[in-house]
């Protein structure tokens, strides 16, 4: 008996594994050709289907949002479309983890909404067959999206893999003001101290010094915060343009004469880090910049006790908005003056994707496409006309009594908190793009790069290589830059830093991006 036990066990394992393998492959082929849909799905108009359809979507929910099922956009749209969506909500904290576990365990929802899938993830899960290719569906069932993609060809090229597949749909932002962080400076303090708006990094340094020592808030204490930024290296992307550092291809990359260069080991980067180190050392730059949370940063904006910071719009500091004015990028020591922090039109890559378990991909595609029209986008961002917004000159504005409680706004729309799959155009931007923000954007406009290349789509093999290289390099760059800025390591270690980057094969990474760029140009 005992002798056979081992053999039996192995045979059983083999048998059961074959069964499992058989089931899973059989399962996917069956599900991709459902007997339902087709004739039921209306190619145009509403409802999308005659018989109600249920979809399960995984989504990220930001701290400011309420539950999605209470949002008027989803309630009203359900009635309109006959598609009922059950959201599986995950908090922003830990969202990435939950999303990865979803894919790793292969327990997939029908679709991912506001999912922040990266290009590398899209390729990985797409080629694994967990996400389905969408290009055919877009052609047939997404007229609004298709129109945008025809109008802005860079959208299509930015989301299509070398094999010609689209695995994820981005959030599309035709409003340029929504693709940059404005540079907000405290005009009231400038006036009080009789200072001009700074034009160069050197002038900025002097202004910040004055902010620190001149007691512009007039309370007799030295409690002003001259400059702050989002947590981590956001300050680097906000300031890099002044040192001639661009952010092309969704990475730390400059492109000159069709030559791609990853600038992390460059002298300009050293110069920038030295400048930031100077600000940090003299307490001009927020000392908590590497430890505060997003909420704390927003609170600092709202306090009015900050001199200079970066944000896309001004609705975080609405009550004191008149104190601040947007300024142009500062001119660096080498005469560089670039607004390098700017995102492509397909701003939020991977905002929406459909998985292989979805029985109604056509319905799902039609469902999401609505949000790429002005009408659907208005519903998503503004809720119900009369109740939440009113039209003025053909443009929706939140009603004043609705805005009285500012927290209301983020409760009714999934766009607050960022990354929702929809169209952001002039038409629907009255709230995030009031005149003051437009003015701030105009200051940036002359300094925007002519072309902004989105992160390239690699083929599966290359994506894996890029992933491996970047895992090490990005971690190293982030850690070392942080240390250079706070002065935990001195700039005498710069050569060692460069040597390590080289050892981590930064040149190989550069070449992969160069190849991708060359392919893109063709």
């Amino acid at each position, binding site marked *: 008996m005992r002798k056979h036990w081992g053999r039996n066990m192995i045979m059983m394992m083999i048998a059961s*594994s074959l069964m499992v393998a058989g089931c*899973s492959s059989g399962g996917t082929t069956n599900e991709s050709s459902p007997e339902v849909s087709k004739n039921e799905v209306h190619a145009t108009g509403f409802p999308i289907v005659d018989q109600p359809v249920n979809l399960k979507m995984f989504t990220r929910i930001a701290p400011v949002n309420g539950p999605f099922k209470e949002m008027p956009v989803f309630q009203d749209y359900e009635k309109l479309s006959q598609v009922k969506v059950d959201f599986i909500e995950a908090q922003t904290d830990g969202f990435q983890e939950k999303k990865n576990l979803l894919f790793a365990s292969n327990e997939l929802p029908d679709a991912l909404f506001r999912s922040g899938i990266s290009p590398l993830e899209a390729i990985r899960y797409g080629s*694994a067959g967990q996400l389905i290719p969408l290009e055919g569906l877009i052609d047939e069932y997404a007229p609004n999206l298709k129109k945008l993609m025809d109008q802005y060809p860079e959208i299509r090229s930015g989301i299509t893999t070398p094999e010609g597949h689209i695995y994820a749909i981005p959030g599309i932002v035709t409003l340029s003001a929504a693709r940059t962080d404005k540079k907000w400076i405290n005009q009231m303090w400038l006036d009080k101290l009789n200072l001009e708006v700074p034009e160069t990094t050197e002038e900025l340094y002097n202004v910040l010094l004055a902010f620190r020592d001149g007691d512009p808030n007039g309370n007799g204490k030295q409690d002003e915060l001259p400059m702050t930024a989002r947590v*981590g290296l956001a300050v680097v992307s906000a300031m890099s343009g002044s040192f001639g550092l661009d952010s092309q291809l969704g990475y730390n990359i400059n492109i000159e004469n069709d030559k791609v260069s990853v600038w992390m080991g460059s002298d300009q980067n050293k110069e920038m880090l030295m400048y930031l180190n100077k600000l940090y050392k003299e307490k001009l730059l927020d000392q908590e910049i590497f430890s505060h949370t997003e909420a704390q940063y927003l609170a600092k904006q709202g306090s009015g006790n900050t001199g200079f910071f970066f944000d896309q719009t001004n609705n975080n500091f609405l009550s004191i908005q008149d104190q601040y004015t947007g300024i142009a990028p500062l001119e660096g020591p080498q005469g560089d003056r670039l607004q390098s922090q700017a995102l492509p039109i397909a701003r939020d890559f991977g905002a929406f994707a459909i998985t292989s378990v979805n029985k109604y991909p056509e319905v799902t595609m039609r469902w999401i496409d609505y949000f790429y029209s002005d009408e659907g986008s208005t519903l998503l961002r503004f809720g119900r006309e009369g109740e939440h917004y009113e039209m003025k000159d053909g443009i929706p504005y939140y009603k004043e009594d609705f805005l009285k409680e500012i927290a209301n706004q983020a409760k009714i729309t999934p766009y607050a908190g960022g990354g929702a799959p929809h169209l952001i155009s002039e038409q629907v931007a009255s709230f995030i793009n009031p005149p003051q923000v437009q003015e701030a954007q105009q200051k940036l406009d002359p300094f925007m790069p002519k072309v902004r290349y989105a992160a390239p789509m690699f083929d599966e093999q290359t994506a894996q290589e890029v992933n491996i290289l970047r*895992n090490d390099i990005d971690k*190293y760059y982030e850690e070392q830059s942080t*240390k250079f800025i*706070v002065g935990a390591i001195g700039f005498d270690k710069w050569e060692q830093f460069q040597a390590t980057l080289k050892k*981590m094969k930064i040149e190989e990474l550069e070449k992969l991006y160069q190849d991708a760029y060359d392919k893109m140009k063709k």
Partner: protein
Amino acid sequence: MKSAKTDATITMPRSHPKKNSGLLRQMGKRLDLYLMLLLPVTWYLVFHYAPLYGLQIAFKNFNPAKGILGSSWEGFGHFQRFFDSYYFWRLLWNTLSINLFSLLIAFPIPILLALIINEIRNKTFSKWLQNITYIPHFISVVVIVGILNVFLSPHTGPVNLLIEAFGGTPIRFLEEAGWFKTIFISSNIWQNMGWQSIIYIAALSGVNPHLYEAAKMDGASRLRRIWHISLPGIAPVVIILLILDIGHFMNIGFEKILLMQNNLNLESSDVISTFVYTTGILKGEYSYTAAIGLFNSIINLLLLLLVNRIARKTSETSLW
């Protein structure tokens, strides 16, 4: 091992007719005990042995859609990548050193505490001391790290206010790589020494009081009595606990380290288990990090075997 045991059952006189009936009958007699055993055995099978099956992804390119069995083989590629990685030596050193220092410093302290409590004649005071020291054990790791943040903050933390009051410059304790291990280990000691001392106190109470009486008669001082009676009395417990500690040597404090980590102290806080979490779960590199995790476990196993062997050789007390 196993065959030896079955052989033994065979040679047992009364279980002659069928090999298994003896064992079965014995199990029948003690059914209640075996039923109680069922639960832990199931638990081990489900949570500790079944996952071993998934370990093979360390040698594969795991693709969730294809499943564990369907993914293609990679061989030792992931291990190679880890050994060649810039982070390899740093991770290994941090993992080993944090745990080694913890062991060297934090392990003896509960023993000392137990000896002190044992020597205190005033019952009220010794109870009070015991309570004070073991209550921190019940505070969750998240709260502990929060407390550390508050107390060690460079601007508002009491520790730095004190330093400033004495004319020093504030220290950014949590943002300096050099301070990380000190803070991590000392806060661990503060949190756990009372709890860990309980078992030693129990062991001490088992030491025969006549031995102390006799030693007193012979004129042994208090220190002598501790050295020659108390310590040998609890030595087996100490050794067993040491070996058990070695058993999870490479994984101590994962949550706490992760919570205390930031870019500025990463130099000395980046350990294998946190690296596995950040790279594996957050970046989706399952195969690569499974390989790293396996490597971690193998080192741990070797350490455990080594320590157990040394213990058996030198003191006759060991786990097996």
